[in-house]
């Protein structure tokens, strides 16, 4: 069954928990004992409502302080699709969690309170989702019951957001007027808003077309493992295992292997169920090539004539995730596809103001939760695509040499100027 990964952001005040709770309830994905447990926990805390955030806020510190520290994952399914919701806390205004949640999402769900309209937080969340290359955005204009289900209010909010969205790079923005509390347009179409002709939220989530979001043009197979069994039965077998990051692969295709640059042909594609005639992202396969080439983990099999950029000086939009700030001259480990290398930060070109998308130049570096464009010099050439074109071959993580902590998330924009 097809899987849709959703990122959500916002605070309790937006009614986000209520909305997700409703999706979970109505798809019967909350167990009775879990519900009973959070009802108990809510009443012990003296809340006058059942706080659905407690379903996933399982850490002692989260329960005691009533906050979500981390990305929370929730799972539900309908007969049509499976859904994974990465829910990120909104009141702690931390892009770090939002960036993490968005990195694997197909769709981002943003809630807007119909009474308050578009806020700074709405713009921030939309900007981050756009930076992370999410192709689909749903703006749920919530609490429509509190504005008398007025079409005019919905139109105002929609127009205001569309003005801002023109600055973003999100292809598909869908607006849905809802009342999470009363269930209007969540699972069923609302009778209160006959003027709204679109689908309910759940229906939209079931139907939204995401299969075309991956790059099926340029073949990209980062080699994860060289399979050489060296057994009597498989004496001559030599295959290259990996998860397809782009393109469509078929036996007979001419391919180029980087960094060597040799050209050869695909002889066969093996899968767990035997040889297959065609593979596409995100399938995991083993490829056998016509010639015996020197191919190792971290190398890349590409379609001939569609080579990625090869460079040692790259420019990347980085979200900094560590307490100690990023400064020019910092040395870091860098992981890109199945390859580790070392890098040095040459300079921080600008910091991005995620509320206005303005560029703040002349900054000393990036602090925790800052996002900015950074020039990196790496020890070995990277073969990459623009993150906008391919999220798998355009993304990287930065790791501190001393602490081994993941300190940054990078989206490659191109070669450094």
């Amino acid at each position, binding site marked *: 069954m097809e899987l849709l990964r959703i990122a959500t952001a916002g605070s309790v005040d937006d009614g986000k928990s209520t909305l997700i709770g409703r999706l979970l309830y109505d798809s019967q994905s909350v167990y009775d*004992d*879990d519900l009973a*447990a959070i009802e108990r926990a809510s009443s012990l805390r003296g809340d006058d409502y059942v706080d659905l955030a407690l379903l996933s806020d399982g850490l002692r*510190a989260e329960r005691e302080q009533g906050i979500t520290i981390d990305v929370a994952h929730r799972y539900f399914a309908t007969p049509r699709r499976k859904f994974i919701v990465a829910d990120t806390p909104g009141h702690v205004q931390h892009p770090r969690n939002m960036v993490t949640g968005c990195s694997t999402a197909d769709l981002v769900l943003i809630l807007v309170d119909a009474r308050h309209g578009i806020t700074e937080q709405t713009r921030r969340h939309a900007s981050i989702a756009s930076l992370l290359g999410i192709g689909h955005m749903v703006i749920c204009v919530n609490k429509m019951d509190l504005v008398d289900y007025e079409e005019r209010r919905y139109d105002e909010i929609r127009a205001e957001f569309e003005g801002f969205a023109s600055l973003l790079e999100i292809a598909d923005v869908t607006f849905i007027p809802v009342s999470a509390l009363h269930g209007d347009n969540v699972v069923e179409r609302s009778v209160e808003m006959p003027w709204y002709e679109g689908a309910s939220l759940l229906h939209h989530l079931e139907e939204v077309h995401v299969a075309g979001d991956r790059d099926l043009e340029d073949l990209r197979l980062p080699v994860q493992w060289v399979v050489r069994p060296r057994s009597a039965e498989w004496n001559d077998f030599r295959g290259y295992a990996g998860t397809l990051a782009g393109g469509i692969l078929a036996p007979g295709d001419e391919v180029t292997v980087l960094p060597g640059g040799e050209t050869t042909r695909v002889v066969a594609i093996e899968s767990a169920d035997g040889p297959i005639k065609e593979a596409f992202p995100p399938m995991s396969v083993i490829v056998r090539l016509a010639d015996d080439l020197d191919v190792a983990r971290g190398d890349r099999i590409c379609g001939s004539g569609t080579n990625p950029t090869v460079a040692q000086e790259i420019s990347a939009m980085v979200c900094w995730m560590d307490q100690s700030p990023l400064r020019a001259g910092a040395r870091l480990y860098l992981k890109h596809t199945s390859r580790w290398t070392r890098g040095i930060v040459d300079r921080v070109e600008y910091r991005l103001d995620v509320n206005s998308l303005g560029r703040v130049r002349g900054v000393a570096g990036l602090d925790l939760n800052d996002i900015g464009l950074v020039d990196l010099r790496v020890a070995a050439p990277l073969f990459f695509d623009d993150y906008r074109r391919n999220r798998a071959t355009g993304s990287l993580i930065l790791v501190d040499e001393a602490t081994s902590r*993941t300190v940054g*998330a990078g989206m490659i924009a191109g070669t450094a100027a």
Partner: protein
Amino acid sequence: MLAFRDRRVAQLGVRLIVASVQESIDHGEIAEDPTPGASRNRLQTHSLLRTIAANRFDAVLGGGRRDEEKARAKERVFSVRDEFGQWDPRAQRPELWNLYNTRRHPGEHFRVFPLSNWTELDVWQYVGREHLELPSIYFAHEREVFRRDGMLLAVGPYSGPRENASGKRPFVATVRYRTVGDMTCTAAVESGAATVEEVIAETAVTRISERGATRADDRFSVAAMEDRKREGYF
């Protein structure tokens, strides 16, 4: 269960390393809780950590899922344990895209949870699709059980109803296990599901969570699992 394990080991020709709680007790490394009916569940941590250290494992794979339990919901796919095997949920590395940070310091190890984003139903659907063989304990069978705190626990060498307790008389029921663990704290559920298809149908409509129905060890407090995981429990 153990016979199934040994048969699979022989089929695959792999080396089996067993960390035994009983051995740790026999060697005087840990002491059993003298309370009648006490669980050995918590004692597993010692044997596990000792075996990881002795074998210098870089990474240990587990089948834990985020949908199982509140503390597990915050677990990473590649989760770092320090020299003492401890989990620090507030100092976890963010996990972006599918770029896992596999760097660690000497003495640290990883707990790796490849099934993090699977649900109980996903697991059963996969078992069905791939025609996987499973131990019979996961399917409906008759077993002598007794009721404690609303759960059905098996009668065995390490567990049984406390003496003279009213209403605790053992009885035979048709049950299966949704999760397999220490018999002193892992309960069976009443079920007639004898095939994979029947288990899938049952799992799809169940109203009680896997651990809620079956695990006494999670009931000590709302943070029981978090506390055990901090100490190094799987």
